[in-house]
């Protein structure tokens, strides 16, 4: 076991101006701090790259006494702050000091998740089994029967074994030391700091002021003696049966197993080659085009549905792709020089029940973003028809899929037309799922957005590659069907609503 560095070696690691500490005489926290700076000294790491993060309570003040970058955070959250620090700068050595309350009560969630992620920070828990700063209430590590200001008859809650807790959460390094054996505590902390993944060290310490006095350990000396008597090394404990170990403090490294460290995994598996390396392409994609480029869209002034501000509502059932259809329709309108707003209903309503997608298009700016009455309504399910048909605008068009929707009752002023979205998708495009895109094609015709090239481009950008062709086919067939239905209606077809 290594020699403890001398006090003169260590002075430079303390902020002289911040001393003396606020800790009570005889408190174990001073020994924990000395072990920590000794370990940092021994490990030879660059002190400029050390960041000490602490929580709240007597232990929380430790960060400020040491001459490193230090962040004294909020109660229980030190590990969460540390996670951000390490993620944003994986080169740093981040040591997190917590008390038992910090680590296992208010911050218990962060402890198990830091262990699970295996993020490369060291969690050093000064466990004195009490809330010292607030005057000695029981904590999640207070032994059963121990007295505190909130358990005057003795604690009835079973305490955590912190090593078991973090092991179960997946910690790759777990160890325990005790302030009664500072040399060993130092070397344990040093191993933890040098560990690549998440390392956990429980430093068993004592709080004479709050815990000792209430539990017949009158002086710091009594507490240290009791701690010494209870301590047993991990090597020795391994030879004993669990009942023989009982409530003893088993010190040493309990577990270490190499596992990929979180920030390293992120670098290896999530990090993408930078955009600059990809030939300077911008993360924002192409945002401008050459004016000389041929216009890709033409807006046909012969639109059947027209007006200053056109409201379109596509109604269906979750899974029918009504939102995709609406988004693509909005993009086709946008390419033709319209301002567009697209909105949709989210949440439970969109999962199974009637769902809808709305598009507003206008040459003028669009302020109020809701479709109150639809100039064009597309109905892909009975549920949607029942729910939305009443909002068909006075001069509006309603397209419905006769395979899914019973023939709606005629409404004065509205033109109600059946279009075989599902049949066309299945028979002509070969993909029944593309009924929404057939509807897109049909709608585009009514809106005068008949630029095929533009529709192809929009579909190409929005649907999965392997179904692009089928979807384009569906859209084109939808356009044909709509043109046919329109000429039929002009001839006075009985389909006219």
């Amino acid at each position, binding site marked *: 076991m290594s020699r403890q560095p001398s006090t003169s070696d260590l002075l430079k690691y303390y902020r002289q101006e911040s001393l003396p500490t606020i800790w009570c005489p005889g408190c174990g926290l001073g020994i924990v701090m000395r072990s920590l700076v000794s370990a940092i000294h021994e490990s030879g790491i660059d002190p400029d790259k050390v960041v000490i993060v602490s929580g709240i309570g007597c232990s929380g003040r430790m960060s400020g006494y040491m001459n490193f970058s230090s962040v004294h*955070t909020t109660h229980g*959250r030190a590990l*969460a*702050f540390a996670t951000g620090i390490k993620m*944003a*700068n994986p080169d740093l050595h981040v040591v997190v000091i917590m008390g038992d309350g910090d680590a296992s009560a208010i911050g218990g969630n962060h402890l198990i998740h830091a262990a699970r992620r295996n993020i490369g920070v060291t969690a050093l828990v000064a466990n004195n089994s009490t809330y010292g700063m607030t005057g000695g209430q029981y904590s999640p590590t207070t032994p059963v029967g121990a007295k505190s200001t909130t358990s005057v008859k003795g604690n009835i809650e079973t305490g955590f074994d912190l090593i078991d807790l973090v092991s179960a959460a997946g910690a790759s390094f777990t160890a325990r030391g005790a302030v009664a054996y500072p040399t060993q505590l130092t070397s344990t902390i040093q191993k933890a700091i040098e560990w690549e993944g998440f390392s956990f060290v429980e430093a068993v310490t004592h709080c004479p002021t709050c815990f000792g006095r209430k539990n017949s350990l009158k002086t710091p000396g009594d507490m240290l003696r009791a701690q010494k008597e209870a301590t047993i090394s991990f090597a020795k404990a391994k030879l004993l049966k669990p009942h023989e170990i009982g409530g003893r403090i088993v010190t040493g490294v309990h577990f270490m197993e190499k596992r990929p460290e979180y920030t390293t995994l992120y670098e290896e598996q999530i990090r993408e080659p930078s955009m600059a390396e990809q030939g300077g392409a911008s993360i924002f994609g192409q945002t401008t085009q050459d004016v000389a480029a041929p216009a890709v869209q033409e807006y046909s002034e012969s639109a059947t549905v027209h007006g200053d501000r056109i409201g379109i509502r596509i109604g269906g059932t979750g899974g029918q792709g009504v939102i995709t259809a609406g988004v693509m329709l*909005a993009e086709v309108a946008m390419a033709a020089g319209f301002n567009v707003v*697209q909105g949709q209903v989210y949440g439970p309503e969109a999962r199974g029940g009637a769902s809808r997608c709305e598009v507003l298009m206008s040459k003028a700016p669009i302020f109020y*973003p809701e479709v109150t009455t639809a100039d064009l309504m597309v109905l892909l399910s009975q549920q949607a028809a029942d729910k939305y048909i009443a909002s068909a605008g006075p001069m509006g068009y309603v397209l419905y899929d006769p395979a899914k929707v019973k023939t709606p009752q005629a409404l004065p002023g509205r033109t109600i037309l059946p279009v075989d979205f599902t049949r066309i998708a299945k028979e002509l495009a070969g993909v029944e799922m593309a009924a929404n895109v057939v509807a897109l094609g049909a709608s585009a015709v009514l809106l005068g957005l008949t630029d095929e090239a533009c529709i192809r481009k929009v579909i190409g950008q929005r649907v999965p590659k392997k179904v692009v062709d089928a979807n384009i086919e569906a859209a084109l067939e939808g356009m044909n069907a709509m043109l046919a239905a329109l000429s039929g209606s002009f001839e006075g077809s009985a389909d006219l609503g």
Partner: protein
Amino acid sequence: MSEKSIPRLVQGNEAIALGAIHAGCRFYGGYPITPSTEIAEEMSRLLPHIGGSYVQMEDEISSIAAVIGASLTGQKSMTATSGPGFSLMQENLGYAAMAEIPLVLVNVQRGGPSTGLPTDPAQGDMMQARWGTHGEHSIIALVPSTVAECFTLTVEAFNLSERYRTPVIILSDALIGHMRENIRLDQLLKAKVIERPQPWMSPEDYRPFASTERTVVPLAPIGTEYRYRVTGLVHDMSGSPKTGDKRTIEDTGRRLRSKIYDYREEITRVEMTAMDDAEVAIFAYGSVARSAYEAVMWARERGHKVGMVRPITIWPFPTLQMREVADQVHSIVVPEMNIKQIAWETRAAIEGRANVVSMNRIDGTLIAPGEIISSLRDVLRAKGGAA
């Protein structure tokens, strides 16, 4: 060669992510919550391409904690959430205010309290944004009304957070967050970005919490030769806790307020529409402002002298601007998707200079232009005009 914009259909939440990337954000810590989740999804996708990182934390408390930690290392950092998560972030939001750490927090508002209306818009967190964390502090909060503004105000939020070393909140809502509009990204990308300044003094002379002429000292990245202390306790200019020194306590508290409050004319922006000869003003923000524009058009078409004031910055409150408005008009109509949160603030700001008419809706539905128009009608009629 002359070029023209390619219009792009973008969702409000997506625009916030794009704005953040443009602003130089390189760290996102978050926890999914409707209706803000798309911001996390976009950031998780975009950040790895530009040397940034995304981490999905175990809750909203740790999300903002991680963001503070990342910001301390020198990375511009953000998180996004909605009502319940915003409540959980309040303690650490106060930490960021106290320790003067720049970050951007997006709250895509939904109906509340509690789980409330997860998918519907509301503006119920206006006061929580101002006073949600305990203790005296200042805060900056911006309110976008369009998808384009989701982009530009996110850039502005980062700029303000760096300029004033403070958390900045964006108060979007479920409607703006989820709707898509056409934007011209090439134009939006012209938004100016303020880089985080680096300290000019040596590590020995560095006092991270001193006050300067320009309000704040640059924040040195932690884990460098600038080994300084950060704490949520009341501290002196070097970061040492000073909870026993009354003078330091008072000075620190006042400085945290004045470093923003004294610059409110520089920070606070409002948009005036048809206000030149207005006798009535509609004071509307966020998604409600969209309906208010239509009400103004309705009124102007009928010859009523109605204008609109839209706060882009809601905190610090545009007190001085509203006093001027109140000196000009007889009534200010305040439609909002909460019950009088900003109407009360307006009343307090204008100190009786004009009549404040509040109108509210809290059922998760955007206030329609017609509803604002009927309030206007009442106001105009009360003044004796035909409406």
